[in-house]
């Protein structure tokens, strides 16, 4: 633990040094007001790579998280007794403090991308799993009854009726999971996986830097949210139709 903490601390110290070397003390930078526009324009390219890293961290962990949660939800769909233990287990993962999670993993998986993905994925499970289970549970009994009564097998009922009807809840879960992963991924720097967190912690004292790096994270979260809302409209047209 202490070794891991030292590694992380030295990471931050190292980052800080590099950053300061590139920061000249002219004008508004020295002033360190709310936002130094000239500096932002000159230095914007330094945020591109962390931004892309951040994007990959979020996408990969949400996609893997969804795949695992979906599998767990299907597994427990016809075995209701599995729901409490799975909810409990993913709930425990969700409550582990995020920085601690990275540090706990460091001795096992080492520094880097994989460690960050494992932790971030673990955080998405609870939200996505619960939403899929809730979505499936909310399918009206009469709808399922008529599907079975017409001769659908369990599998046909699941894929043709239950899952399509659960899509709104599933997408709602994905939205929450994605937005929170964008925020959590700023801590991936402690696992040595880069991302926008790297820039934020590079110089927490320089406001312009924090505003740009943090702002990009916020924009990314909003963009994901909007995309998922659009996706929902496309996939679930029957939810938005107006009575004629």
């Amino acid at each position, binding site marked *: 633990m202490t070794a891991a903490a030292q590694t992380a601390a030295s990471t931050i110290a190292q980052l800080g040094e590099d950053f300061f070397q590139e920061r000249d003390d002219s004008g508004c930078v020295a002033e360190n007001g709310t936002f130094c526009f000239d500096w932002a324009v000159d230095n914007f390219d330094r945020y591109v790579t962390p931004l892309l890293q951040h994007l990959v961290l979020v996408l990969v962990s949400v996609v893997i998280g969804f795949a695992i949660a979906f599998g767990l939800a299907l597994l427990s769909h016809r075995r209701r007794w599995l729901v409490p233990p799975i909810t409990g287990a993913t709930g425990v993962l969700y409550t582990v403090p995020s920085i601690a999670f990275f540090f706990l993993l460091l001795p096992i998986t080492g520094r880097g991308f994989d460690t960050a993905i494992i932790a971030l994925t673990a955080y998405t499970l609870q939200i996505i799993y619960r939403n899929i289970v809730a979505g499936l549970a909310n399918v009206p009994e009469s709808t399922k009854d008529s599907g079975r009564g017409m001769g659908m097998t369990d599998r046909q009922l699941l894929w043709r*009726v239950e899952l399509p009807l659960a899509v709104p809840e599933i997408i709602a879960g994905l939205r929450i999971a994605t937005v929170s992963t964008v925020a959590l991924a700023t801590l991936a720097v402690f696992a040595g996986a880069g991302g926008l967190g790297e820039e934020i912690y590079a110089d927490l004292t320089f406001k312009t830097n924090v505003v740009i790096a943090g702002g990009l994270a916020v924009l990314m979260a909003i963009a994901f949210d909007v995309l998922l809302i659009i996706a929902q409209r496309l996939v679930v047209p029957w939810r938005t139709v107006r009575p004629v």
Partner: protein
Amino acid sequence: MAADATGKGDPPEASAEALPVEFRAATKRYAGADRPAVQELSLDVPAGEICVFVGPSGCGKTTAMRMVNRMVEISDGDILVGGSSVRDRSPFQLRRDIGYVIQQTGLFPHRTVAENLATVPRLLDWDRARVEARIDELLELIGLDRDLRDRYPAQLSGGQQQRVGVGRALAANPGVMLMDEPFGAVDPINRERLQNEFLRLQAEVKKTILFVTHDIDEAIKMGDRIAVLQEGGVLAQFATPAELLMAPADPFVEDFVGADRALKRLALMRVSDIDLWEAPLAFPGQATSEVRSKLDRAEISHALVVDSDRRPLGWLTDADLGAEIVPKKPGTSPEPILELDDVMRDALSDLLQAESLYAPVVDGSGKLAGVLSVEIISEFLNSPDALADEHAAAERPLADA
């Protein structure tokens, strides 16, 4: 027997033949329950008839119906559809050949009207062209506008949704249909309309239908035969509506059918089923003295004025009789005018509403056929053999209508 028609290779539309359903001491016991939900139910539903299961809640009527398509597994006994046991087939195959309609329609909210109608044909792997053609046929059959084809259920009225539910059950042209309180969730006015529509549809498609309801009036109206079940899934009586009303098997059935069963019989007849009175007639321009002498000998104390085609114009009042000749427009209007095809219950209701003791009855062309009075109806209700004519289920559509 008829089951051969469903042989492979034949298009299912052609296998429209209705199949008989036979309950053979069918019993359902649930684990932990101290008595069966359905107890040794034995009855035969002939092909093409509507059999209504009716009874108070907890009488097992829905359970009995659901055993037919194995939504509920039979514990003991058997059920034969088209002569073969439902247990001999996989539940999925069996269900695809049996129409299924439930109270809340159970339409798939994420599928359009057309997609909902196509559910069973798709499960049966029909090719696309055949499914499309069938959807068009079904829309016409259930009387739904083609524009509604691509609507989602949420965009339809309750009545339209119910029609789609019925159409979906008919899609693969099953020999048997199960309907569980299909009109239960619809308001009374629309229910009446949907019931009539459904009877008209049934006259066309002639399926064997098992229909569950808790409403005895609906049972009397819809059923060719009625199975009254009592608590514990025991069959109390299996009879035609007229038999049920005339001769309830025991106090339970009598109580369930209701104290107003005499009135309910009226729902089973039309005005033409009864012997009408003859009214003393008068024609415009005729001398009133002639009419007066006729009146002395008549059952009815007023004369009915009719035109040369014997269409009722009105009733002569005492003031009219005081004049020399019969006027073209007598003092009292002929309303209400009843028709021979009117359901007796509605005719009585019209009479009572107009506060009149009798009313002229006309045939399809408006010509006078006789006079119906409250007195005739009441005499009729008191005559025990009046209802022997069991098939006069009056709200059934007329053959030529």
